């Protein structure tokens, strides 16, 4: 679903089911939930009570003065008033705590779940979409839990309670109120529908506008170079005018509700005073009754407006909750591996392989990888890799060369089991990798990607990401190995310099050196370098490659490179085309073959 349509989807598909699941979260805070509701009920009943007291109080003044009764009624009203305030505060406090705790739990569950989701999930869902579920959807859910639930409850009780009191006071006046309320409901519905329609078209023009702004701002320097400013301003003005019109429309309907409802309730006020007065003259009602009734008409119309507003929010919240649960219901990465990595007395790692007879076989960790007829596709029916056979002996360097989309990165993604193969087998030290525990499998590998990703924290924290228990000394060693030490020592706080916004204060080359240091500190058996030096110039690359060479020593290494100079000294080079290995061998072999590799090397063809 793209961003545009997401915003437009305000209605939940299966509200009851979502609601039920949402309520299941309250079980952790049952006491809060029950007492919250209890106090809200107390508060709304007290409000009805306080208004009801107006009638006897005024009558005790107007009809026939009775000081004792007057004081007593006033006192009872006072108690109701205190109950209103206390009930409202405690009730809201409970609901707010409940909401915060629930949302806190949901957020935590979502994050933990996200960490367990397979990579394929992130391929098919945009960051923006997930971010929006995490922020907007959780936010609106929080709002609804904090206010929506208590307001709907409060309103319902107020409406029902007030209604009962009205019938007791005067069935005739109640009839007037019901008739007027019906008119109000119809009006709300009418305005609500208009408003929703206009809101949708406003959202569409807004999305269009935002898209345009994003595109132009991103290419602003091109705009300048081409003197395109005036044409951009013209395009922009047109969209801006559309947006202005649609926003004005949507806002008019949105804001209209308040004066319309407020004044309709005044019409009701007028009718009640008028008809009430006739009834007083016929002695079927007291003046105090009118006062109470008038106060009731004010209290009954407000919750109706409020609830109609709340319902939109509640529905949006349920739709949001549905998306949240949808994320939580995504299947997590499977890990049924029973082969664990263990350390023997001398500190050497071995695979502990359970045998059918219940015993264990110890296989030393070496870093031997082999592919046997491996086929794979991200989407069913579209194979990205077809019948791949290859092996890497411990300590060897294997390179992959080929166009974008030829399947180079996919091969490495299969080794660390970011994706599961469809056909064939991959063996690690002779063990089928599907049998190896994923955590242990990945702990023996390090990966350096073209797009370096750094985390908020210090330089040392970022290097230590490779192995959390690395000492300061080891961190420094790794940095030296990766040739990163020379620039780190020039940073203001050296290793304690805080990196912000994905290391925005470092150059591309420096960021890459850090990620190499990070891989080095992990001390992996297998190293994967995916276009690790593509975004730096040749001179910087030379600097990095020195560190890289040291890093690769004694490790099985898989290299993906655009630049052929980095793959020359590999033990084997695989030229991939459309998911198949079309040439293989070392540099000399492939050059003498005078095939695709040769053509690439001599610059006859372009890699895309």
């Amino acid at each position, binding site marked *: 679903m793209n961003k545009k349509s997401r915003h437009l989807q305000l209605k939940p598909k299966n509200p009851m089911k979502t609601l039920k699941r949402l309520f299941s979260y309250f079980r952790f805070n049952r006491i809060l939930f029950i007492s919250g509701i209890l106090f809200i009920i107390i508060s709304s009943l007290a409000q009805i009570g306080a208004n009801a007291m107006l009638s006897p109080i005024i009558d005790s003044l107007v009809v026939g003065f009775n000081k004792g009764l007057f004081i007593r009624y006033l006192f009872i009203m006072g108690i109701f008033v205190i109950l209103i305030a206390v009930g409202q505060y405690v009730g809201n406090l409970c609901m707010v705590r409940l909401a915060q705790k629930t949302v806190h739990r949901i957020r935590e569950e979502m994050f933990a779940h996200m960490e367990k989701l397979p990579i394929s999930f992130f391929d098919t869902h945009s960051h923006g979409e997930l971010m929006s579920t995490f922020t907007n959807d959780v936010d609106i859910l929080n709002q609804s839990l904090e206010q929506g639930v208590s307001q709907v409850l409060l309103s319902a009780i107020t409406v029902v309670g007030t209604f009962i009191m009205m019938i007791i006071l005067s069935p005739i006046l109640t009839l007037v109120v019901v008739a007027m309320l019906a008119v109000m409901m119809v009006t709300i519905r009418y305005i609500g529908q208009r408003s929703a329609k206009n809101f949708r078209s406003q959202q569409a023009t807004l999305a269009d506008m935002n898209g345009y702004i994003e595109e132009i701002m991103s290419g602003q320097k091109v705009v300048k*170079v081409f003197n395109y400013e005036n044409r951009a301003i013209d395009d922009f003005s047109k969209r801006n005018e559309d947006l202005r019109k649609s926003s004005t429309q949507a806002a008019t309907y949105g804001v209209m509700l308040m004066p319309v409802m407020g004044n309709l309730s005044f019409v009701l006020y007028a009718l009640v005073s008028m008809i009430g007065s006739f009834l007083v003259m016929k002695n079927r009602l007291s003046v105090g009754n009118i006062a109470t009734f008038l106060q009731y008409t004010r209290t009954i119309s407000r919750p109706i407006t409020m609830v109609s507003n709340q319902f939109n929010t509640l529905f949006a919240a349920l739709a949001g909750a549905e998306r949240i649960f949808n994320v939580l219901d995504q299947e997590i990465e499977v890990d049924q591996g029973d082969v664990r990595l263990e350390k023997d007395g001398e500190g050497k790692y071995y695979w502990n392989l359970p045998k059918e007879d219940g015993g264990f076989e110890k296989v030393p960790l070496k870093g031997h990888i082999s592919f046997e007829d491996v086929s794979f596709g991200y989407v069913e029916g579209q194979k990205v890799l077809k019948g791949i056979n290859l092996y890497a002996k411990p300590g060897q360097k294997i390179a992959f060369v080929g166009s974008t989309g030829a399947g180079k990165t996919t091969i490495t993604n299969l080794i660390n089991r970011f994706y599961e193969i469809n056909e064939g087998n991959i063996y690690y030290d002779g063990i089928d990798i599907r049998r190896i525990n994923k955590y242990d499998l990945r702990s023996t590998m390090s990966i350096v990607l073209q797009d370096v990703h750094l985390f908020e924290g210090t330089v040392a924290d970022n290097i230590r990401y490779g192995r959390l228990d690395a000492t300061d000394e080891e961190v420094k060693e790794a940095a030296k190995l990766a040739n990163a030490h020379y620039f780190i020592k020039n940073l203001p706080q050296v290793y304690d310099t805080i990196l912000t916004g994905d290391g925005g204060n470092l150059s591309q080359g420096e960021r890459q050196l850090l990620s190499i240091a990070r891989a080095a500190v992990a001390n992996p058996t297998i190293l994967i370098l995916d276009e690790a030096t593509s975004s730096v110039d040749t001179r910087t690359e030379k600097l990095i490659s020195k560190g890289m060479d040291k890093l690769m020593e004694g490790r099985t290494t898989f290299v993906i490179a655009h630049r052929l100079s980095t793959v020359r000294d590999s033990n084997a080079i695989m030229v991939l085309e459309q998911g198949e290995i079309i040439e293989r061998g070392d540099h000399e072999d492939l050059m003498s073959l005078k095939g695709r590799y040769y053509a690439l090397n001599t610059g006859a063809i372009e890699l895309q």
Partner: protein
Amino acid sequence: MNKVLLLMKKYKVYAILSPIFMILEVIADIVIPYLMSLIVDVGIANRDIDYILKIGLLMILAALLGMAFGVLSAHCGARAGFGFAAEIRNETFKKVQAFSFANLDKFTVSSLITRLTNDCNTIGQVTMMSLRMAIRAPFMLLFALIMSFTINSSLARVFMVAIPVTAGAITIILYKARPLFLKLQGRVDRVNAIIQENLVGIRVVKSFNRQKHEEERFKERNDSLRDTALKAISLVILLMPILNLIIYSTIMAVLWFGGHQVVLGSLGGGELISFITYITQVMISLMMISMFFMQFLRGSASMQRILEVLNTESEIKEISEPEKELKDGSIIFENVSFLYPGSNEKTLRNISFKIETGETLGIIGSTGSSKSTLVQLIPRLYDVTEGAVYVGGVDVRNFDIKALRDQVAFVLQKNTLFSGTIRENMKWGNENATDEEIIRALKHAQAWEFVSKYEDGLDHRVEQGGENFSGGQKQRLTIARALLKSPKILILDDSTSAVDMATDAKIQEVFKNELSEITTIIIAQRISSIQHADRIIVLHEGKIESLGDHETLLKISPIYREIYESQQKGVIGE
């Protein structure tokens, strides 16, 4: 600020009408309880049915009028608010269009996007709300007070206690809540940051087995978000109960003091009832005023950010009677130094060189040697700090900027295509270009070979940023776009890095033979892209290390030789 208020001009009528309608609505709303008191005190007392009917209908009329005024006010408010926002957005966009590269660097793309989108929308909302709430609440308060004092001035004195108490309670709570909410925003940002970080870096997290580690980091942030939120919100939810307490206490006080007057006959029962309605109106108005202040704070933060843009002046200025025509394509750099604004180290130092019309200049050097900075001085994307740049014998600062940039085509290193068709993108270079001209440019840039293969040819879709083309194709399209300007000078900033060597050679060939009258400057990583240039500059740390043709440089420049040798081993592209 005055400049901004001028933008309201177009919607002035609505900005004035909205409050006027609002005041009329308030008057209608205020009159109604008073009319009610007449019904009770006069109508019932005299048992005058006609009077009750008359006053009753008057009340309904007032309510309907109030509704009409309310709706009109809402409409005018929306028009003024969003009209104002649209004007501001337009003005801001225009301003950004006039920004120099230095201004753009300072603001960053993402912050300009937020300013044009979120901030402008917020201003629209807040303006609309302000026009309504900021007028409605004080007038409601004022009229309700006037009515109360008219009915019974001694009883109305309860407000002298109630209003300060309410205002005080609201002020204290909001004052205490504000820093908490600011802190809360910070907590929210921290949680969002880690989510974003994990979404972007999920492969790193997974490959290093750091899920548990990340969950712990998240938990810490999530916990502190919950704690801060609870503190902040627990404070705000005090508002409603306190307000209710005050409203009902005031009602009770009115009953107590008014009760005696009713007994003594100096106050009518109906008047007492209308008094109670006025109390609610006064208190709700106070609440609305406090809400308005919260809105206003939000709006003023956005306005501040917009003003930052509007008050920024491009430092690149035109002289009063600028040159409009480039005589030829010769370029002279005379002792040029350049300092980026805000930086304290010169990026370029004492650059001097000269190229003649139709010559080709190559520039090579490692990242950070300021190759791009140097060429950006030619179309005056930045102004020199010291020295001067002459194009066609005239200082670039004496040109009409538009004319200068029309005749100097620049293919940026970070280039982009825009969503639309290939033809639309090509027309950036020349609005009136014919298909023949476009095809010729595409042929020159060696792009026609793949464009011609599309069934829809020039109508082929270009996705945002040109994502549906490979790096090499994109570069060739951007070169064609620049050629359509029929420039006197063409600058290619690392623009063929993703193009294969054979095609690159063909492009060089075209420049040499068919477009030989154009002065060409080529920045490249690859020696082969520039080795046939008339002159090559080796730039090192902002200075010219050496200058000469390929053969000369191989002899005199160690850096050039080093790059050359490393590439002889078989570099095929970036």
